[in-house]
């Protein structure tokens, strides 16, 4: 019997450590379905009133001078999907070359990628501002997508190189001997073999793009191409009269796709977070 008790100790200790996280997320869920919360205590009866920004946005005061939520959601989706796709394409091309082909500059590039992989790219935002202005991409979704892609790239290239390294040579060799070109071989033979890797990197880049706050906040100030993160920042940032019922609902609406993805792909995501350290 005593043995049973001691074996429960790790669970209890870890539960105590984890409690703040459970409380925070529990509050978010709870708060969005009640008119008001005092701490963890809901005031009033269960309601969907906080969610009316979805079907009757014109009745929500706090949203009156904000960009409408559905276009913002679409922007966020465009932003994160394009980031993920471009990251996948570019890093699997470069990763393949770095894994398979000997060429001048390979070592230098690989060293550069590794260096940038741990390099904190946020320190470059000030200079990036000028680069984007020069390219006439400032205040445009395309510009922010490019910057985000570039920031994700060192990690993507590194991880894709790793995936290509694990693919055996035989199949590829057969294709090349049969006279298929490198591009054809890469696209038709090798890419299908690294599908799990592509999926993992794609998920990660999508999540990272969906969550991104700083880049759209800094590089798209005018608002018509904004993303959800900037809207929520605006809702909280308006001083002490924050409509928490509304903000929790919008916040939950914003984080829900990520939570659902995470629920179904947590093993994959955890593995890639552990293997390719970032953040």
């Amino acid at each position, binding site marked *: 019997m005593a043995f049973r008790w001691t074996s429960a100790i790790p669970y209890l200790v870890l539960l105590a450590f984890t409690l703040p996280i459970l409380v925070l997320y529990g509050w978010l869920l709870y708060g969005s379905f009640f008119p008001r919360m005092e701490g963890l205590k809901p005031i009033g009866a269960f309601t969907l009133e906080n969610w009316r920004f979805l079907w009757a946005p014109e009745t929500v005061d706090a949203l009156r001078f904000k960009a409408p939520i559905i276009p913002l959601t679409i922007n966020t989706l465009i932003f994160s999907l394009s980031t993920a796709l471009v990251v996948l394409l570019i890093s699997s091309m470069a990763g393949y070359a770095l894994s398979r082909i000997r*060429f001048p500059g390979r070592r230098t590039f690989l060293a550069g990628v590794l260096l940038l992989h741990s390099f904190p790219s946020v320190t470059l935002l000030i200079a990036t501002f000028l680069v984007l202005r020069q390219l006439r991409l400032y205040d445009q979704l395309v510009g922010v997508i490019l910057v985000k892609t*570039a920031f994700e790239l060192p990690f993507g290239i590194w991880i894709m190189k790793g995936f290509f390294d694990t693919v055996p040579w035989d199949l590829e060799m057969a294709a090349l001997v049969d006279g298929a070109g490198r591009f054809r071989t890469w696209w038709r033979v090798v890419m299908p073999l690294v599908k799990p890797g592509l999926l993992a990197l794609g998920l990660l880049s999508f999540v990272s793009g969906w969550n991104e706050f700083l880049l759209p906040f800094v590089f798209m100030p005018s608002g018509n191409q904004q993303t959800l993160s900037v809207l929520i920042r605006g809702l909280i940032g308006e001083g002490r009269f924050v409509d928490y019922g509304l903000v929790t609902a919008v916040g939950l609406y914003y984080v829900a796709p990520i939570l659902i993805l995470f629920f179904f792909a947590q093993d994959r995501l955890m593995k890639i977070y552990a293997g390719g350290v970032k953040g």
Partner: protein
Amino acid sequence: MARTEALALARGGQAATWWRSNATALLFMMPAAILVLVFFFVPVLLTIGMGFTNIATATGLAGWQWIGTANYEQIFRGAFTGLIARNTLVYVVLTLSFNVIVGLTVALLSVHMADRAGGAFRALWLLPRISPSVVYVLMWTWAVSPPPFGIINQLVVPLGVAPRFWMNTDPWPVVIFVNGFVGASLGMLVFASAIESIPEDLFRAARVDGANAWQIVRRITLPLIRWPILFVLVYQTMSLLASYEYILLTTNGGPGLYLTEVWSLWAFHTALQSYFGNLEIGLGAAMAAILVLVGLIVSALLLRLFRFNDLVAEPRVEIT
């Protein structure tokens, strides 16, 4: 005459051969190379270069001049520089300690329980990292908001603690906890996978010899994962030095003047989000350049420490 022509031809032929044998690789690398060039290489040079100019929005970005090291002199003589450097140190040291200690604790506890339960706990700890920063900060803003609303006030008042507006009265603990709960998951994942790769025999042998749990952790686990620990320490030192997103979203450097302002946020405020209207991009770039240099040095150090040469080994088999 004929000789030089032949030489030129030969050289041309060489270039053609070179191109033929490398064209595929270069085409594969092209998109990545362009993005890295435009969004890393150029910005690094620009950051360092702009640090020696007075470029600012007040002069319309175009009318700038080289001003030598004036920006750096201004930074080092600035009235707030000492405070901000101290803040940065406090922020990095405390957050890092939280990250590593909590990450290690969660990793140790979670690997020594049933697989499914351990995985569930690790997934919970990953939530702050995979959630959008604005939503995560929203939850904290609520937790520390003034009575009768804040969760923390509701929990501590029965214990006899006076309720308060934590973000204003105790901004540092708030900043550290907000960042710590995000950062701890990195150590947790790295340490957990390192611990899981330790051969089970070692633990079994120690238990047979009568070692208790603490002795096993102290004598076997910790020495065997010292490299992952070192890695996380160095890596997170650097990313914390450069990171400001969560501080920007919580205290934004306040309350009051620069109370929780850290170096990277200072650069950001100076160059991109100034309270004073004029964006002093040159001055901000000088501040950032210091961080860029630290970042480059620490990254290079990391590569040295973690067997860089193995990582960039040539492809094993080569077909042309």
